[in-house]
């Protein structure tokens, strides 16, 4: 390790170090002549205690800051501590063999970085490079080329989701190396023996005795080998490569949408090769599990995809009624088949009972449904009994044949010979509805539309109640069951077709059958070769999604080919058949990387007398974080020193400031959000008058006082009881809560931004009304009696940028003049300014109406009379500002104007509708 091992990734940034002397000069420089400010209250400003801050910083502070700058510059130049190369190369062509099976995936970054480093080093010496990936098989160039070609080849390389067949490489390697002298052979091994590793090593050694082998650093490869859907848990079997020490981890279960469903821990004991993890999930949830993976492992063998084969139960259907063939759509076979079709694979048998039962049991069906079947043949009783004990559920439906046999080991109850008929013409009793569910059916909804007209009756037994899962409203059992071993026998006391009851036609029937399915516990291990018997279809399943070497699902590669369903159970993943899903989106089979019969063995290097080196975890140590941390620490020190140097009077403020900064940094503004929420809640919970802040204190104060005065009057005189008025900021605050915005215009205020105007426009468009008040009628006379005031010019400028309706001076018959008081003008502090409103259509001549009929509310009211000035009162109710006008009642009239405006805004054209009152009274005969 020499000096050279310290380097920079971006050394040109170091040129910035040249500015350090300049920085030093700048920091040392005395500040420029200060600006002179005339300031009469100087005596108040200067007190004896205060000291002048030094004109230049002390030297050590400058050095500290220069060090800080130097640290930053060095950090951005990305300093590196170059590690010693693992492989020393001599001057010969380089032949690189890379394992790219899934076992190479966990450390693929290091592996490819190592390969890149080797190729680059060989290329700088001008040596040709050949690269071969073991999983890519013999279909590779096997040619020595320059470094760039090898690098391109390397960048196209990715771990494959199957174990490599390394021996396929030997022949082309021999051919390629035969023509070269002094070849350096390097094998980047993944450390997993796929059966031919010893032979491969042997061959490599014969090709080049100076073989260099690098293998992965960590042998913590773990795989999922298989899954058992146990009776009460999903059991995941795990295997690992390195057995030396105990280890723990988690298996995660995900559903189709890749959402985490559950996580189960596992732990390998010392020297243990395998272990299991258990997911204790309800079976309905278990069926949603789509993918199991070892948390933290990123290779394909740590993933098992689940298809529907083990989730879906198979149901065997057999009917003893020969008439079923005559009316197939009314037959129990058809009804049961359709009912189960959604959630189970249905196998219907029509041969002899013995033969059919034999096939069902051999096919490991979960549920056997026998509709109206009499006695079970003697030669099948033992097999059926064992099947039930193993978790099968035998469901029998009543029928004339079944009632004949009275008692049977496969009936939960013994039956009376006669049937019970209800609701017939000769019967007093009415058809019975369902009365109660119990046992596993207890949580089903009781349907009101299911009636039973005929049923088989159970003999009274002491434990009949215990065996009953469903009974009729009068307490007669409808479904009885008995547990046997791990399975059940179930009897439904009506037939499976609708002649006895309409139960088979109801939704409840589906639910009951589904419960039966869930109860069946016959375990069907993944991949067990059971499907041949029952699933004789032999179609080609096309690849749907494939796993890549890292265990992520991707669209299938171009090389992927279909698999025949018959061969599926025996298929092994390879380049043509990558692991993943095969079939169609709704029904697919999963081919997994690692199978229960696969072995996970480490390559035995020792027996070949080879000492493999480890792939370096990191080639270079990046020193940038260290430099950044140093710079940050220097910065902190600088902050603290500056703080200490500061005048005593400033300390408190700075401390508060620093605390605020820290608070702002470490809290993602919850306080602000809460404050906003509170403000919004307050605004939404009651009606309020609001004004837009102009940013000029006296204008805002008068506006607030004015709205307070108006609010008070509204409370006293009208049914409107507004809450305290608020001033709002057009940019920051939400406007929707306020029916009216009073907007005092002052030529001194800043022109609102475009966004603000757009917001105001949207507010008006959505039904709000803005009352613009230019408040300067008194200045109107300056340019002639009809000229616009400066405020009006300003407002005109502002409204030009908005999409505003046409305005008109308030017509005498506008509803605004009559909404509460009858008014002729709307004075404020000035009395003669006109009020502008949205243009309305005048009444047509032939109708004599006191009020115009105009729908909606003017979204814009413009005045120059300074309304708020006239409304403004102090806390004791005394008027704040004098009025300019001759009418002694002007203040009262101004208040009435305000009330009219607010009532108009809240009630709209209600008053103009009242013109119909005479007509209404007339019609009522008054």
């Amino acid at each position, binding site marked *: 390790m020499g000096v050279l091992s310290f380097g920079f990734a971006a050394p040109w940034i170091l040129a910035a170090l040249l500015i350090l002397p300049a920085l030093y000069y700048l920091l040392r420089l005395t500040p420029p002549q200060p600006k*002179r*400010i005339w*300031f009469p*209250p100087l*005596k108040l*400003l200067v*007190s004896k205690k205060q000291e002048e801050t030094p*004109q230049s910083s002390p030297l050590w502070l400058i050095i500290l800051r220069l060090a800080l700058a130097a640290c930053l510059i060095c950090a951005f130049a990305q300093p590196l501590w170059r590690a010693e190369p693992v492989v020393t190369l001599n001057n010969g062509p380089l032949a690189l063999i890379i394992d790219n099976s899934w076992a190479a995936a966990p450390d693929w970054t290091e592996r490819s970085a190592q390969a890149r480093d080797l190729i680059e080093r060989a290329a700088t010496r001008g040596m040709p490079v050949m690269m071969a990936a073991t999983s890519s098989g013999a279909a590779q160039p096997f040619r020595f080329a320059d470094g760039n070609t090898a690098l391109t080849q390397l960048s196209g390389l990715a771990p494959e989701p199957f174990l490599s067949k390394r021996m396929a490489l030997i022949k082309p390697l021999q051919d390629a190396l035969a023509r070269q002298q002094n070849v350096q052979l390097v094998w980047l091994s993944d450390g997993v023996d796929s059966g031919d590793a010893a032979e491969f090593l042997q061959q490599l050694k014969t090709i080049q005795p100076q073989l260099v082998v690098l293998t992965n650093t960590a042998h913590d490869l773990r795989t999922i080998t298989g899954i058992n859907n146990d009776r009460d848990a999903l059991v995941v079997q795990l295997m690992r490569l390195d057995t030396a020490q105990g280890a723990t981890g988690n298996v995660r279960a995900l559903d189709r949408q890749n959402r985490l469903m559950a996580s189960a821990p596992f732990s390998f004991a010392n020297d243990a090769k395998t272990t299991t993890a258990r997911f204790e999930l309800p079976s309905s949830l278990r069926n949603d599990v789509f993918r199991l993976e070892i948390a933290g492992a990123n290779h394909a063998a740590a993933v098992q995809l689940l298809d529907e084969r083990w989730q879906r139960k198979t149901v065997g259907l057999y009917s003893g009624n020969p008439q079923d063939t005559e009316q197939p759509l009314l037959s129990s076979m058809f009804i049961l088949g359709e009912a189960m079709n959604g959630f189970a694979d249905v196998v219907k048998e029509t041969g002899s009972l013995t033969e059919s039962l034999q096939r069902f049991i051999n096919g490991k069906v979960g549920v056997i449904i026998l509709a109206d079947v009499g006695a079970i043949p003697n030669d099948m009783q033992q097999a059926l009994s064992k099947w039930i004990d193993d978790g099968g559920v035998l469901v029998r439906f009543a029928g004339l044949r079944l009632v004949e046999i009275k008692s049977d080991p496969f009936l939960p109850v013994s039956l009376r010979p006669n049937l019970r008929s209800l609701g017939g013409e000769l019967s007093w009793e009415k058809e019975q509805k369902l009365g109660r569910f119990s046992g596993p059916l207890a949580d089903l909804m009781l349907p009101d539309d299911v009636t039973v007209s005929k049923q088989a009756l159970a003999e009274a037994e002491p434990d009949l109640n215990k065996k009953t899962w469903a009974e009729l409203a009068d307490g007669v059992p409808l479904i009885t069951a008995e547990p046997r071993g791990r399975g059940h026998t179930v009897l439904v006391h009506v037939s499976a077709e609708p002649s006895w009851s309409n139960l088979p036609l109801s939704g409840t029937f589906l639910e009951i059958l589904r419960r039966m399915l869930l109860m069946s516990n016959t375990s069907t291990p993944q991949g067990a070769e059971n499907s041949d018997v029952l699933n004789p279809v032999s179609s080609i399943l096309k690849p749907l999604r494939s796993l890549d070497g890292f265990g992520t699902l991707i669209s299938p590669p171009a090389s992927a080919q279909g698999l025949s369903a018959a061969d599926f159970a025996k298929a092994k993943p390879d380049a043509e058949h990558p692991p993943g899903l095969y079939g169609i989106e709704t029904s697919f089979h999963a081919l997994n990387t690692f199978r229960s019969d696969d072995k996970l063995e480490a390559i035995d290097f020792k027996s070949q007398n080879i000492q493999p080196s480890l792939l370096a975890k990191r080639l270079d140590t990046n020193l940038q974080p260290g430099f950044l941390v140093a710079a940050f620490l220097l910065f902190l020190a600088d902050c603290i020193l500056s703080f200490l140097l500061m005048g005593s009077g400033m300390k408190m403020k700075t401390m508060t400031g620093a605390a605020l900064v820290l608070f702002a940094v470490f809290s993602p503004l919850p306080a602000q959000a809460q404050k906003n929420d509170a403000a919004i809640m307050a605004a939404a919970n009651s009606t309020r008058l609001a004004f837009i802040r102009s940013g000029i204190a006296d204008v805002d104060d008068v506006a607030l006082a004015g709205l307070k005065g108006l609010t008070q009057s509204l409370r006293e005189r009208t049914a409107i009881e507004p809450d305290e008025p608020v001033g709002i900021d057009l940019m920051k605050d939400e406007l929707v809560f306020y029916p009216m915005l009073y907007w005092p215009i002052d030529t001194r205020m800043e022109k609102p931004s475009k966004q603000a105007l757009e917001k105001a426009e949207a507010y008006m468009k959505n039904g709000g009304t803005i009352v613009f008040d230019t408040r300067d009628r008194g200045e109107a006379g300056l340019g002639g009696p009809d000229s616009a005031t400066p405020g009006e010019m300003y407002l005109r400028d502002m409204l030009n940028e908005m999409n505003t309706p046409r305005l008109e001076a308030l017509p005498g018959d506008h509803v605004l003049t009559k909404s509460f008081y009858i008014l002729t003008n709307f004075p404020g502090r000035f009395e003669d300014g006109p009020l502008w409103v949205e243009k309305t259509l005048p009444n047509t001549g032939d109708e004599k109406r006191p009020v115009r009929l105009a729908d909606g509310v003017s979204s814009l009211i413009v005045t120059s009379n300074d309304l708020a000035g006239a409304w403004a009162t102090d806390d004791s109710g005394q008027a704040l500002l004098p009025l300019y006008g001759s009418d002694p009642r002007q203040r009262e009239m101004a208040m009435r104007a305000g009330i009219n405006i607010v009532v108009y805004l809240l009630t709209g054209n209600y008053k103009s509708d009242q013109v119909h009152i005479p007509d209404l009274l007339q019609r009522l005969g008054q």
Partner: protein
Amino acid sequence: MADVEFLPRPKAADTAPLIVSAHQLVARFPTLLSAARRLAATQLHGVHSRRRAGPGEDFWQYRRYSFGEPANSIDWRRSARSDNTFVREKEWQATHGFWFWVDLSSSMFIRSNLAQLSKADAALITLFALADRLVEISERAGLLGRTPALSSRNIAARFAESLPLTFETQDGLPPNITAPRFSDCVLISDFLNPVEEIVARCAQVAGDGARVHLVQMLDPIEETFPFEGRLQFVDPESNETFLAGRAEAYARRYKWALEQHKTKLRSEARARGWSYRLYHTGTPLASLALPLLLMLTQVTSGTAAGRGLR
């Protein structure tokens, strides 16, 4: 950051701006006068009578003649209707005296870019406006120590003529003169001197029982101290300087000191029954002149409330 201008600029850099050319000031008068007229036109008339017997035009009361009074004061027509002799008394409608003083020391000639007017200009406009309006409603107004109480129509011009003489007072304090009794005395200044000095001088002005109204004029920068960075502050009166390395560091302390100063002045004024008003040159002048005039006319109208001020 605010920029501060010194109006008019001193001629020599080494001396404090002591003397401002009267001509320069008069040259600005026409505009100031018209601004004052416009202001006064918007103000209201205040009719006041004394509600007691005295010289005036309206009848007040008959009273019995008392011995020693001049015989020509007897109202013979009334006396002929009874046995007694009566004197006809009229309601006292004597005009009231208003005295003004405007601080024209250097510190008043400061204008920041936050204000339209310098403090002196604002004070002069207020003075002219008030005087103009008071004379118009038949009151008399005078400059304290400079003019007699005048009631001429062109009172603003008369004041303007006599103003330059007052520049010799450079201490920023009212003149050492006692105002006539029962008159109102309006003192406009920035009142930045120590409160004790101000109060002592004002007390002397009010010594004979005149009502004193203090109007403190401040530039917005003096109130808000909107300064940042390295600045040298210069007092226009004493020419003292102060170098602030980081001006913003002084803002809090300065504002606190100013607040103390104002509060002290206000409480001293209240304790003596004087009125006190604060005006910032950034705000419209009418907000000062209007309430001030209303208060003055209310005071002179002789109502109970007006007298209650004493």
